[in-house]
């Protein structure tokens, strides 16, 4: 066992220890994008929200889209890692850490986007001081903060063994401050049977809890839309629809990050085709559910063709035709075909599919937010012509890019601090086997 750990540590030493010129270039690039975002943010603060494409009709734009998107991939990470943990899937080890990282990092970025949408950031404390429990936004504040807390604990429990391993390591030479950091973070974990038992129990409890929290949080997010009377939002299906869409987008992000880390950190021995196919199959099942919910939602709107629903559908099939085709046709059918037909199941194909799915799901959120606001009950009139349609400005795009850059940067840095593949994973293996025998 010990030797296994050592082999792994050696294998991961370069990632943890050194950052090559490409690594620095990558980090500098991300920092540059983030700087652009900071500039855009100052523009927005100094000149007011007028610099965005949002106006009185379309009051929420791509900030909200990004918010839903990042929260979505976060919940997906939680659901996937929690479920895989509870089911003790033996193949989960090399990818579970990634899912956990995705969860926590996107959970930190998501809420920032909703803050960008708020007119008076200086009055943000009012949410706590004068919070009204009747408002779905208050539900969201409570739910998201619970989720962040729960996911942090879950992630921490999951990395505790690795932190202890890194603290005790004498094979790769880690700098002093990092040793110190690992020592503090490892909380004196030495792997005694009692510690192991407790850790396992706590992880199980947290895994179950974050699954429940994730479902609740994403439903609450959907209710922000569906409690209103807006045609297109006022739908009972939104809660489960958002949960499914979230896990779906998250599975795609997981596949993409698996591919990237496999390439960059040379993890071909650990992340194999089997993993891509397994997560691919999860993605396929979710694609089917997502397609079913989407179809169900739009079919009822179209068939009954209530006046405002009809206007919305007309808008979606005209001005937003390609958005709709990509998000709700290609985004559903591609995984079904690529993962469904064994011949097509290659690592490259599955990865390309996941990229398409990520774009499709982002567009899906765009189609939920923007066209609905563009087709209110009272037609948009007596309003400046340039206010009729929404188009994101460079400010909004820069901040969106900055969000993606922060995600990538934190992901990169996290993988430098804590191995992206659990090095103490073999502990799990033994435990699982033991549990399997005793059960």
């Amino acid at each position, binding site marked *: 066992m010990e030797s296994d750990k050592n082999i792994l540590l050696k294998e991961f030493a370069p990632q943890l220890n050194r950052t090559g010129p490409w690594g620095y270039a990558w980090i500098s690039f991300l920092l540059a994008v983030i700087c652009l975002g900071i500039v855009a943010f100052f523009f927005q603060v100094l*000149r*007011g*929200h*007028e610099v965005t494409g*949002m*106006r*009185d*009709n379309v*009051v*929420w734009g791509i900030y909200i889209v990004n918010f839903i998107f990042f929260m979505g991939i976060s919940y997906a990470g939680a659901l996937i890692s929690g479920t895989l943990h509870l089911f003790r899937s033996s193949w989960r080890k090399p990818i579970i850490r990634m899912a956990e990282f995705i969860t926590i990092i996107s959970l930190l970025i998501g809420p920032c986007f909703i803050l960008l*949408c*708020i*007119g*008076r950031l200086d*009055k*943000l404390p*009012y*949410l706590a001081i*004068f*919070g*009204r429990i*009747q*408002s*779905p*936004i*208050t539900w969201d*504040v409570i739910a998201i903060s619970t989720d962040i807390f729960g996911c942090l604990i879950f992630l921490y429990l999951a990395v505790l063994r690795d932190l202890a391993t890194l603290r005790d390591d004498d094979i790769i030479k880690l700098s002093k401050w990092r040793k110190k950091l690992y020592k503090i973070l490892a909380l004196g974990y030495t792997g005694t049977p009692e510690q192991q038992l407790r850790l396992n129990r706590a992880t199980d409890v947290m895994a179950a809890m974050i699954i429940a929290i994730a479902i609740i949080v994403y439903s609450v997010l959907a209710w*922000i*839309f569906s*409690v*209103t*009377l*807006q045609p297109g*939002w006022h739908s009972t299906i939104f809660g489960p629809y958002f949960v499914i869409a979230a896990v779906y987008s998250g599975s795609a992000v997981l596949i993409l990050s698996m591919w990237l880390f496999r390439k960059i950190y040379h993890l071909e021995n650990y992340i194999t085709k089997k993993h891509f196919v397994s997560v691919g199959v999860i993605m396929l099942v979710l694609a089917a559910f997502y397609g079913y919910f989407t179809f169900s939602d739009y079919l009822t709107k179209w068939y009954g063709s209530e006046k405002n629903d009809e206007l919305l559908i007309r808008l979606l099939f005209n001005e937003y035709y390609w958005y709709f085709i990509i998000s709700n046709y290609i985004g559903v059918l591609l995984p079904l075909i690529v993962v469904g037909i064994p011949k097509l199941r290659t690592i490259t194909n599955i990865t390309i599919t996941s990229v398409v799915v990520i774009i499709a799901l982002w567009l899906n959120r765009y189609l939920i937010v923007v066209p609905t*606001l563009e087709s*209110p*009950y*009272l*037609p*948009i*009139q*007596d*309003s*400046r*012509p340039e*206010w*009729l349609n929404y188009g994101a400005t460079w400010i909004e795009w820069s901040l969106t890019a900055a969000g993606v850059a922060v995600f990538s940067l934190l992901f990169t840095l996290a993988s430098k601090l804590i191995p992206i593949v659990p090095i103490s994973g073999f502990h799990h293996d033994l435990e699982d086997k033991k549990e399997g025998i005793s059960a």
Partner: protein
Amino acid sequence: MKEQSKNKSTRREFLKQGLVAGAGIAAGTGLISSLLDARTSESVEKVKVMTTDGQIREVDKAQLKLPRVSREESHYGIPGRKFVMVIDLAKCKNARKCVEACQKGHHLPKGQEFMKIYLLQDSDKTSPYWFPKPCFHCDNPLCVSVCPVGATYKRSDGIVLVDNERCIGCKFCMTGCPYSTRVFAWKHYPEFDEDKEPYSPEAGSPGKEGTVSKCDFCPDLIRVGKVPYCVSACPMGVIYFGDIDEDTVTNGTDTFQFSQLIKDRAGYRYLENLGTRPCVYYLPPVDRQYDVSLGFGDLNEEIKNRYNETPYVKKHKP
């Protein structure tokens, strides 16, 4: 009601002189008098007001400053009142005086109108009509339900107000309102600085950047016995304002019994099926005195272009 409209012509003359007048006409409906008291002339520094004992007196315009209640006080309605508005669609010809007076009264920039005028046409074969739309001050207001900080509230007198000092600008109320009534201050507009008075939610002014505001039924005017800006500004007398408990509404010229008016003219509330229970009623556009095209008469290009997407304009485009 017939008795009430008798005095119509004399009263109109009376008003044309720029006088401030009591509601002498509204015989038998003395309760409404407080709503009709003050009318000011804008061209002179001195204005005439009617005192409570019926005397007409000249006072400095500056003395007519509207009282502004505190934010705390604005949470409670005016005791014993329940306000209602009736809009007569048969008379509207998009003169936009209501919009202008409202903008001026609330120190609002162009493009941030509390009062909007739609050119609605219910279906292809039905006739188009002008549709002034203030806030409906719903009795079941979704905007109030969804506000996370209690910045918007429903008062005992039926008015839904926004406290811009509390508002965090999340815009949830804007998506909650099915009537697209609310407006957002996308930046600090110079018009906000025109108002030197301290902020009061009842005045809805001075505006604040990054917050939501909307039509407020002008409670600051009601407190001094006036009707909202839009009501007094309308040259056609389209908009009636009054008290549903007193069962009286007035457009400054004519005064009607609310229930009778709604009964006789088949008044209705817009999008009743949404269950928001508006406090604004509409009288259907029947027996119209003006062709709908008159509404384009004096509009400048910018305003005219705002109607480019309406079916009516598209159909009549040369």
